[in-house]
């Protein structure tokens, strides 16, 4: 019995398996692909698809960088480096010195042309509309979120490329050998901005009106997008007139000056809707009595109580979505990851542009009227009496982070003016008259050419995560990147109001932002000038990915980065002037005075120093205002016109 049991069973099984129809046998649903009708039947699945689309949003400055640049297949750009450049910082990493050694930005710098992303967004919308098993509320919200993301990406494109083909449906190829139906010309630059504004208007009331939702699109995010986009369009229309060469006859680049007022009005209205609370309870972040700590906390406070942030790219430690910004930029001497630190060093150019508390501009006082050094008891004293945002944005010599003090000093200055220093803090030297070797340079730098330590005399503080372990490579930091925040909305409103001839309104909004920074003397409406607006955005929004686009839309990038050497006289003069040259990042190096018996012994002096690695100077050419479209794309679509001045 046993002998025949097994073969019988087997043959039965085989026979019955073979009875299946061929069509049934081959036609099995795939197990590794979720078909779109299934995917769009469950809100959780739709959200996961949308999560991918959110992840692919393009930020100019991005804490986690670009792991895989979709455009050139580049293996990646570290997050910290997307915050560097433009004279605002020095990159203290040997592989990144090119940032301060190059003379030109290539014409294709900053370009983007990710129509695969646009297609995925369009497909998502098509499938979402066709879904039958989702509730109407879910369907509408998902659809509105995708529209928001599409408008955001068109905004990212128009900022870089000007007018681009406006593709609003998923295109299909018919495989007949003729692709001309898939080739679209560039839309006008103004048409793209109009599209962004109308999309934001269309989705703002579909999206939730909830200030505690930060990482998904909300009414506040849509309005903030609208305000910023309209402001950009308005300033391109107004200031584009000063650079008539930067335009194309078809309007793909350049917006007629007559439209400026309309755009500024749109920007002001959209910003005021947020300010007036129509999008939820947003407000300036004011929780800590220490205004610098308060300012730094805007960027690290992830709680729902952070009323400042409107729309963020969120991260989560221990869940796979983290970034290395803190690892890359923490102070060297107490780095969580020995040797991995200190890359992004704010420049003196930026530091000195933070105002005094009486609303005046002044260089950092290193010397008195006679050119003699000023002696300070404490390295922080030299920065006293300034805008609180300075210490909130920049880690100054002698300041603290994670309860430890940064050790930034370049050496001992002896009585005869000579310097005793070393190329490494570990190398001890005996001072004249001393008995034992001592440390003669700060553990956190600055030493020329010594990477991962500051070479400008400053570390960055904005975005730096105070959480224990956030500097470790393995854990990483989950501080979010704030794409839109209330402070910027106020500044957008102020700028739009100023351009519309309402300086009183502009002063009101600007003074709110300034009061939060300790600048309690309000600016009068007569004091609101173009230079003031430019300056306020530079200091409030430093290291938030605005500087390039701001300088571009005001058409002053060619003045600020004019390809001339930046002398010390350039550095110290014209602070607060919009067109001030900013081509090379200067540093401020502290020295300890060694002069036993003299009252100045042990005090601090400071010297403006150009880091030795800075051999280039930034030159922004007219052709840089709009990034080049690459030759492959131009060759594939003859309807595209090239950018001006390239």
């Amino acid at each position, binding site marked *: 019995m046993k002998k025949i049991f097994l073969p019988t069973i087997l043959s039965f099984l085989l026979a019955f398996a073979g009875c299946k129809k061929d069509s049934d046998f081959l036609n099995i649903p795939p197990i590794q692909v979720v078909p779109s009708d299934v995917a769009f039947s469950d809100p959780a699945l739709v959200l996961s698809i949308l999560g991918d689309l959110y992840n692919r949003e393009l930020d100019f400055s991005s804490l986690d960088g670009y792991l895989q640049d979709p455009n050139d297949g580049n293996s990646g750009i570290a997050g910290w480096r997307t915050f560097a450049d433009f004279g605002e910082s020095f990159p203290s990493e040997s592989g990144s010195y090119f940032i301060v050694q190059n*003379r*030109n930005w290539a014409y294709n710098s900053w370009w983007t042309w990710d129509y695969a992303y646009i297609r995925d967004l369009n497909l998502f919308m098509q499938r979402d509309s066709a879904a039958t098993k989702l509730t109407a509320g879910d369907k509408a919200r998902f659809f509105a979120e995708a529209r928001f993301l599409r408008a955001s990406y068109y905004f990212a494109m128009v900022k870089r490329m000007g007018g681009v083909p406006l593709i609003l449906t998923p295109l299909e190829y018919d495989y007949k050998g003729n692709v001309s139906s898939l080739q679209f010309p560039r839309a006008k630059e103004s048409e793209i901005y109009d599209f962004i504004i109308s999309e934001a208007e269309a989705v703002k009331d579909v999206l939730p009106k909830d200030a505690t939702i930060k990482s998904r699109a909300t009414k506040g995010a849509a309005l903030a997008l609208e305000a910023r986009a309209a402001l950009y369009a308005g300033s391109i229309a107004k200031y584009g007139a000063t650079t*008539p*060469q930067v335009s*194309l*006859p078809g309007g793909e680049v350049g917006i007629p000056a007559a439209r400026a007022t309309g755009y500024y009005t749109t920007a002001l209205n959209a910003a005021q809707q947020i300010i007036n609370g129509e999008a939820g309870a947003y407000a300036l972040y004011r929780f800590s009595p220490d205004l610098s700590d308060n300012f730094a906390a805007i960027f690290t406070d992830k709680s729902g109580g952070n009323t400042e942030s409107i729309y963020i790219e969120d991260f989560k430690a221990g869940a796979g979505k983290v970034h290395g910004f803190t690892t890359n930029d923490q102070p060297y001497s107490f780095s969580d990851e020995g040797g991995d630190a200190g890359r992004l060093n704010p420049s003196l150019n930026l530091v000195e542009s933070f105002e005094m508390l009486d609303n005046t501009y002044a260089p950092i006082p290193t010397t008195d009227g006679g050119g003699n050094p000023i002696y300070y008891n404490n390295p922080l004293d030299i920065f006293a009496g300034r805008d609180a945002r300075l210490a909130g944005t920049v880690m100054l010599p002698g300041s603290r982070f994670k309860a430890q003090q940064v050790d930034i000093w370049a050496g001992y200055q002896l009585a005869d003016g000579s310097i005793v220093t070393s190329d490494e803090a570990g190398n001890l030297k005996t001072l004249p008259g001393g008995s034992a070797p001592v440390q003669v340079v700060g553990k956190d730098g600055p030493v020329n050419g010594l990477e991962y330590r500051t070479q400008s005399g400053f570390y960055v503080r904005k975005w730096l995560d105070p959480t224990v372990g956030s500097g470790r490579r393995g854990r990483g930091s989950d501080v979010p990147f704030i794409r839109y925040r209330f402070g910027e909305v106020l500044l957008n409103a102020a700028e739009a109001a100023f351009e519309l001839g309402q300086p009183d309104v502009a002063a009101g909004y600007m003074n709110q932002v300034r009061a939060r920074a300790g600048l309690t003397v309000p600016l009068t409406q007569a004091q609101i000038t173009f230079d003031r607006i430019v300056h306020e955005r530079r200091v409030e929004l430093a290291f938030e990915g605005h500087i390039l686009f701001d300088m571009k839309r005001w058409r002053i990038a060619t003045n600020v980065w004019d*390809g*001339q*050497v930046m002398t010390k006289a350039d550095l110290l003069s014209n602070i607060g002037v919009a067109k001030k040259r900013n081509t090379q990042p200067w540093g401020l190096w502290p020295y300890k005075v060694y002069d036993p018996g003299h009252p100045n012994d042990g005090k601090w002096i400071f010297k403006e120093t150009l880091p030795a690695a800075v051999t280039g*100077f930034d*030159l922004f*050419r*007219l*052709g840089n205002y709009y990034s080049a479209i690459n*030759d*492959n794309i*131009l*060759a594939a679509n*003859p309807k595209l*016109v*090239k950018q*001006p*001045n*390239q």
Partner: protein
Amino acid sequence: MKIKSVHILFMVVTFASYSCKKDNYKEPAAQLSGALQYKGENIGVERNQVPFQIYQYGFGKVGAINGTFEQDGTYGSLLFSGSYKFLIPSGQGPFIWKELAPGVPDSIAITMTGSQTLNIEVTPYYMIRNATISGGSGKVTAVFKAEKIITDANAKDIERVSLYINAGQFVGQDNIAVVNLAGADITDPNNISLQVAVPSITPAQSFVYARVGLKIANVEDMIFTPVQKVQY
């Protein structure tokens, strides 16, 4: 396994014999060269700043062979034999380049059968004439005349004139000292004089390279005189 000299020898022989293989194509051998000229006189420009583009006909994809003019206005490109067009992108150069339509630059047809010299005749907005650059007592002085060439509706003003000096032969943005004179401050365009003090150079040298540049308002590229070596 220890790397022994026999292994190294083996690798060298392998690599060497691989490189014996013939290339599929002969390298381009026809030299196209020339200079930017106005009535036979070279136009000096900033190094690496004034681009030109050469397109070859007859291939699938349209992409330019890009190059830039040298500081004395010369250019060169090694090409295959064939037909090409040469153009300067719109808005580049301190001169007017003819446009077929706004933003569409005209081009020069070139047939390469061997090396050839092709001077590019353009009309600059200005020419710097009779420039004499001299040095002495730690200073460099330049005297020159700015001649306005384009005087019709396309005429443009002088934004500034600059005297650049550098320790090396590339002079312009690369400089150790520069002195500027704004266009509005020029009293007599026929007789402009600029003087710049030579800063200390390490290692010390008894000469500098100098030239004069002229920036035209609303035009990106400057026009320059030839580089001169000046004792000071």
